[in-house]
């Protein structure tokens, strides 16, 4: 079934090398978090074979990579849309009306939390405190933060994400 060869691009491999260089040569596992992140950035999500491929690159047993991949919240172990929208719903954002932002996003995208739009464009998620509390309500889309959100601002942001 899985005839597809899992691999990482040269760019990803050299990025992993740069991460490995930050740590002592006998401490390759330290770069495991980064390597998983780089693999996910390239492939969109971490399928089990990809996690094991990363384990091979870092030279750790596969279980170490699975442990890490399942422990940290930023790793996607299931497919996600092209744009992952994560709305902070913790207290500072809650006090500034994040419920309206979440409701608006559900409405506009036609999905619930943890669902992906049919066209595969957006996945909607809630996230724990993003440490952007002075700019509440806040959300993260991919690597970028958006703050002081209103429904209108959210619409403009969505338009820019194809």
């Amino acid at each position, binding site marked *: 079934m899985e005839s597809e060869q899992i691999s990482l691009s040269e760019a990803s491999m050299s990025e992993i090398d740069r991460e490995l260089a930050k740590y002592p040569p006998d401490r390759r*596992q330290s770069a495991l978090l980064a390597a998983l992140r780089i693999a996910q950035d390239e492939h969109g999500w971490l399928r089990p074979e990809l996690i094991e491929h990363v384990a091979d690159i870092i030279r750790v047993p596969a279980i170490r990579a699975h442990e890490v991949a399942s422990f940290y919240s930023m790793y996607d172990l299931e497919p996600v849309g092209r744009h992952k929208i994560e709305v902070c719903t913790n207290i500072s954002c809650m006090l500034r009306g994040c419920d309206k932002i979440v409701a608006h996003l559900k409405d506009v995208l036609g999905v619930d939390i943890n669902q992906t739009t049919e066209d595969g464009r957006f996945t909607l998620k809630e996230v724990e405190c993003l440490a952007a509390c002075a700019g509440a309500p806040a959300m993260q889309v991919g690597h970028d933060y958006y703050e002081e959100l209103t429904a209108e601002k959210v619409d403009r942001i969505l338009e820019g994400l194809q």
Partner: protein
Amino acid sequence: MSRQRDRSLIAERFGTVRQAASVCLPDPSVKTPWKLETYRAGGGYTALEKVLSGQIPHADIIETLKLSNLRGRGGAGFPVGVKWSFMPRSSDVQKYVVCNSDEGEPGTCKDRDIMRLNPHALIEGMAIGGYVMGATIGYNYIRGEFREPYDVMEEAVREAREAGFLGKNVCRSGFDFDLHNCLGAGAYICGEETALLNSLEGKKGEPRFKPPFPAAYGLYGKPTTINNTESYASVPAILRADGNWLDGQWFRGLGVENSGGVKIFSVTGHVNRPGNYEIRMGTPFRDLLDMAGGVWKGRRLKAVIPGGSSVPVMPAESILKANMDYDSLQQHGSAVGAGSVIVMDETTDMVGILERIALFYYEESCGQCTPCREGTGWLYRIIRRINSGRGSMEDLDTLLDVANRIEGRTICALGDAAAWPVQSFLRHFRHEFEDKIAMDRANAA
């Protein structure tokens, strides 16, 4: 491109908020404070140069920090100079300095702005720490979501390396120190220092038993000191002491007894002007609230969580009498924590707030210790039951019972942090929980 414009806007937002001295947040009149040349023009890296000149015994630097009364800004408030003195400087094993930039305590957003606006202060502080503690490598562990601060830090490290402030033979002193920025991957628990070390080793972020403490057995089992971003970034200004080199009294005098210096308070929630305010320790809460534009919509103050979601909530009448320092907040029943001041107006539903806090700790418990793993789930489910109209009065006693059974029975402080909000919300706002339960019962009947 747009990022740079955004960062200038942050500085503008801080326009009115530095009160006594610019220590961690740059003066808002300074354009592009994140650049090396700007930082240098303001006296940046002169403390590192002075320290490395060989004319100052490292013990004097530790004494200055002790005298300055700089206490750890990550939440625990442990004196930085004392922590640095625990490191076995003269031992020739590899030692490490680590910065905890895993900012994630709900309500806290200061380290993000220190890194975006003043990355070189952090680098200089860590390099000084490396020299004083005999560590040649530093790691700045940045939470995974902070891609922008990470990029800013990476650029600053590159600048510092090119200018000879990092790398081999720093400032031609013979001292080697290199600094690496590392990204986490989404886990509040990694803000706990030993969980952070495990994460740096490429493992699950599960806290370790203490002792042994990191100064004896830290990263890779080697002596390690971990400080918060704001703590390291405060060090260069403290040593410069506004021109009175190594006069710890300067910083100390900006604050009050037991709480030296200025500190950033992140004021968020129901205020007119949320933001980061670098103010004198000991400033009355009333003044801080005024700086933040007061309670929004002309409403009255109901409650404040003064140090991030883990510290006890304070009703308005208590916080309005308190000052923003370690002793005063403690006397009034709470703590400085990470300086994360969450303001709630009179319309706030305290049951809903506590449900959200309980969900957070349930989500973020690492699962290592049974009281925390199971107890945080109990707490959340009971509060959710009450909040959804299906609670009973006995639930309130069960809540306290569960909270009390978590507190003090776990490897790290996350268990305590989950218990304290429950205890304090019920201490001060129990009537709201009781009223809600009674009303829901009456409606059901």
